[in-house]
């Protein structure tokens, strides 16, 4: 009964989005109809929530007559994994996607009074149309409510053990918030094109949403990377796997969009470019969904491979992206404004930033799609691995850091050369610091020196700017604080990446009980293996004693788990996390005479990678609360147009 209720709610939500899309895009000026779109949006959210709750309920009550529950849950699982198993498989995660989409639409309606009504109705109409596509996809190709009657299994098949983890509880919802959130700037861009209103005011409306979606995406990707690090047992944190790339591509586009929007808002220029990025960002979200769900690329993540689904997404992608890019080609050229700017100006450096991000995007796209192209042409298979990506990303990241270090000192339009003095000063300090680090830590690679030097330079030059502003006694806008935090996060991140990529120590050894090995000035002793029982698995737990030279010793436990239901074996690494370094032990295969194959890692600054990324995400969230965005009160299109024109003329 409950699953049918959920199914029915989803159908109703789909019907409401159909009506909302038709009315929203119909150019109506009838205010009652326009208001009805808002009500339908709210109703659609309520129905999507009901539908999702019904599925959660089916999981919580172990209703194995529902096929999706039977395939992804098991009565032995702890309750929190039962609930999170709701989005552990394809069908349920898509329902979550729909719920989140409806949630963003609901959030839009809360801010609806800030935008001109006809523009806002269009935005909702576009979002409703997209959501209709998602709901149809769910209903026709991946319905989570299908029953197994009369052949109801006694127990479920269990959730993939890789996914039975805290990381999975939070990673997909956050990532989807980001993916789907990019639909908002997309809808703003398309509505802007339809209404022929793309100006500074438009950019200001879009920025809040873009920042929010970007921050969620950043946090989601970070969590995914952290999850892969401790759950896969390989000690790495980024694998250039197609599914990781699928989330990284929209992130690169969205990062470019965040910056380009600021130029469009402040200077009224870069309009076509901003529009294109807004469309691109969401297109890559959809492309990511296609890559993950169609099985076009094999990957550890592609749990559900089904050609029907892939075809549906491909057609949907063609309509949505093809349609919006055609609209863009026809309309974007209109009312373009030429604003002159100098080489030493914020505009120019934003252009550099965007150029780098787009090149990076092209590299990832190439690396992800080339294997398909190669197979299509020659029939063979190739794989593009880490060296390809590193070759491009190392120089791109470093050049980006240079631009970032100079940026705070630049004005819009033009900057006098003398104004760059603090940059030179902070560069000198950063160089001295780097040379010092070089002597103390003796890093072998030039790239490390460059990353540390540039990272420090970015921190210093932002610090100098912050200091100057504080001395002037002006209150700092939230957007400025957010930007500074995000930029600091970037430095922390690249320093972490450079150090952990080059200074890590790793050894695969055979260890019998009471054997000791040295790992980065720590003595690691294998004490033996004990049997432990989990709720739905049994495990062999290797116990290790780690004794650093300096401070106190500690114990690390690495597990090899065997899950009852699927008979899957999983490794659970033992990790001693630290701000300066992680010690990471994972248990391999048992060898003869009670010995085990053991993998030991010492990873300096690996936490900085995620801390930096989280700092970026946090900066994005902080920037949302800027007064410029929260106190928008614009009722009709006319006044915004004049306000925008006034802005662009300054």
């Amino acid at each position, binding site marked *: 009964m409950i699953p049918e209720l959920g199914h029915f709610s989803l159908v109703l939500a789909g019907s409401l989005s159909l009506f909302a899309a038709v009315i929203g895009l119909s150019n109506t000026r009838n205010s009652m109809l326009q208001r009805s779109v808002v009500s339908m949006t709210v109703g659609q959210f309520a129905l999507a929530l009901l539908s999702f709750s019904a599925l959660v309920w089916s999981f919580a009550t172990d209703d194995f007559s529902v096929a999706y529950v*039977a*395939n992804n849950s098991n009565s032995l699982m702890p309750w929190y994994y039962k609930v999170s198993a709701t989005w552990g498989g394809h069908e349920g995660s898509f329902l979550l996607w729909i719920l989140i989409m409806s949630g963003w639409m609901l959030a839009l309606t809360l801010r609806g009074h800030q935008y001109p009504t006809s523009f806002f109705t269009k935005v909702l109409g576009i979002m409703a149309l997209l959501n209709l596509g998602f709901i149809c996809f769910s209903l026709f190709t991946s319905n989570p409510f299908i029953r197994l009657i009369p052949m109801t299994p006694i127990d479920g098949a269990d959730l993939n053990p890789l996914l039975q983890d805290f990381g999975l509880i939070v990673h997909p919802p956050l990532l989807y918030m980001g993916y789907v959130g990019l639909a908002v700037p997309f809808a703003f861009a398309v509505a802007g094109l339809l209404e022929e209103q793309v100006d500074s005011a438009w950019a200001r409306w879009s920025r809040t949403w873009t920042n929010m979606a970007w921050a969620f995406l950043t946090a989601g990707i970070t969590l995914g990377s952290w999850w892969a690090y401790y759950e896969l047992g390989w000690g790495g944190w980024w694998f250039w796997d197609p599914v990781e790339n699928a989330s990284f591509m929209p992130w690169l586009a969205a990062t470019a969009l965040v910056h380009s929007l600021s130029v469009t808002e402040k200077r009224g220029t870069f309009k076509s470019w901003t529009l294109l990025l807004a469309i691109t960002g969401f297109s890559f979200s959809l492309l990511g969904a296609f890559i993950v769900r169609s099985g076009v690329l094999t990957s550890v993540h592609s749990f559900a491979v089904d*050609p029907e689904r892939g075809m549906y997404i491909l057609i949907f992608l*063609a309509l949505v992206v093809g349609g919006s890019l055609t609209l863009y080609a026809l309309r974007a050229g209109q009312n373009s404004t030429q604003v002159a700017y100098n080489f030493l100006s914020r505009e120019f450096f934003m252009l550099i930033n965007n150029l780098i991000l787009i090149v990076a995007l092209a590299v990832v796209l190439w690396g992800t*799609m080339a294997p398909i192209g190669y197979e*299509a042409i020659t029939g063979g298979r190739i794989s593009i691995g880490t060296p390809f990506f590193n070759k491009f990303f190392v120089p791109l990241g470093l050049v980006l850091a240079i631009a970032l270090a100079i940026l705070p000192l630049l004005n819009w339009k033009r900057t006098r050369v003398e104004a760059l003095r603090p940059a030179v000063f902070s560069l000198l300090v950063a160089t001295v610091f780097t040379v010092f680090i070089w002597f103390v830590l003796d890093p072998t690679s030039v790239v490390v020196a460059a990353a540390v030097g540039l990272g420090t330079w970015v921190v210093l030059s932002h610090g100098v700017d912050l200091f100057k502003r504080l001395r002037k006694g002006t209150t700092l806008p939230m957007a400025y604080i957010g930007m500074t935090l995000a930029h600091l996060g970037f430095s922390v991140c690249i320093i972490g990446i450079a150090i952990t990529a080059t200074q890590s120590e790793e050894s695969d050894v055979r260890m019998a009980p009471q054997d000791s090995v040295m790992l980065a000035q720590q003595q690691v002793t294998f004490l033996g293996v004990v049997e432990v029982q989990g709720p739905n698995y049994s495990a062999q737990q290797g116990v290790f004693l780690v004794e650093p030279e300096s401070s106190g010793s500690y114990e690390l436990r690495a597990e090899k788990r065997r899950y009852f239901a699927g008979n899957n074996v999983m490794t659970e690494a033992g990790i001693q996390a630290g701000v300066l370094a992680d010690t990471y032990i994972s248990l391999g295969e048992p060898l003869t005479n009670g010995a085990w194959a053991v993998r030991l890692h010492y990873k300096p600054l690996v936490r900085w990678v995620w801390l930096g990324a989280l700092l970026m995400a946090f900066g994005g969230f902080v920037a949302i609360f800027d007064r410029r965005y929260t106190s928008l009160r614009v009722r009709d299109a006319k006044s915004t147009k004049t306000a925008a024109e006034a802005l662009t003329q300054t």
Partner: protein
Amino acid sequence: MSRASLFVPLGIFISILALGYVGFSLDARDQLPSALLNKPFPEFSATSLLQPEVKITKADLLGRPVLVNVWATWCPTCKSEHEQLMRIAAETNVLMVGIDYKDIPQRALQWLEQYGDPYDYVLDDRDGSLGIELGVYGAPETFLLNAAGEVVYKRVGDINSRIWVNELLPRFQALKIEVRGQSAGSADG
């Protein structure tokens, strides 16, 4: 910016889409590319699950068409395809060979007792070594061999009524396997 350049993104998108379509149709063959396709089935020697003292080799599979099905009790999809396999066993004279992949023999025997045994031979592959020979991605997987022991078809995923009607039945007919009764062909659509 000239008007024409605004069409560039659309052009790029269409080429990516075309690539996606081609790549997709490559993988949408319902069968992951198998190195074994149109090649002889590898030589093997495995223990029979039902009679552990009996060894079964490739020689036992020659001389007539064979449907080799890789399954396990831990695999829920195997359970869903089981009924279709039972029908095929009942209504055709193909030699059916099951490979019990990475499984616990007691559970497998219990399963065959409970749901029926469609197989003429069941091979015990508890360590998965035969699976490696066959390039098995995961259960269930099904291979169709001709009388000369060559792989003519491979399916990754379950054998459902759609696959039976569209993929297997025509190949059965091409291999001149006798198909009696209608229910196997028309079972729930």
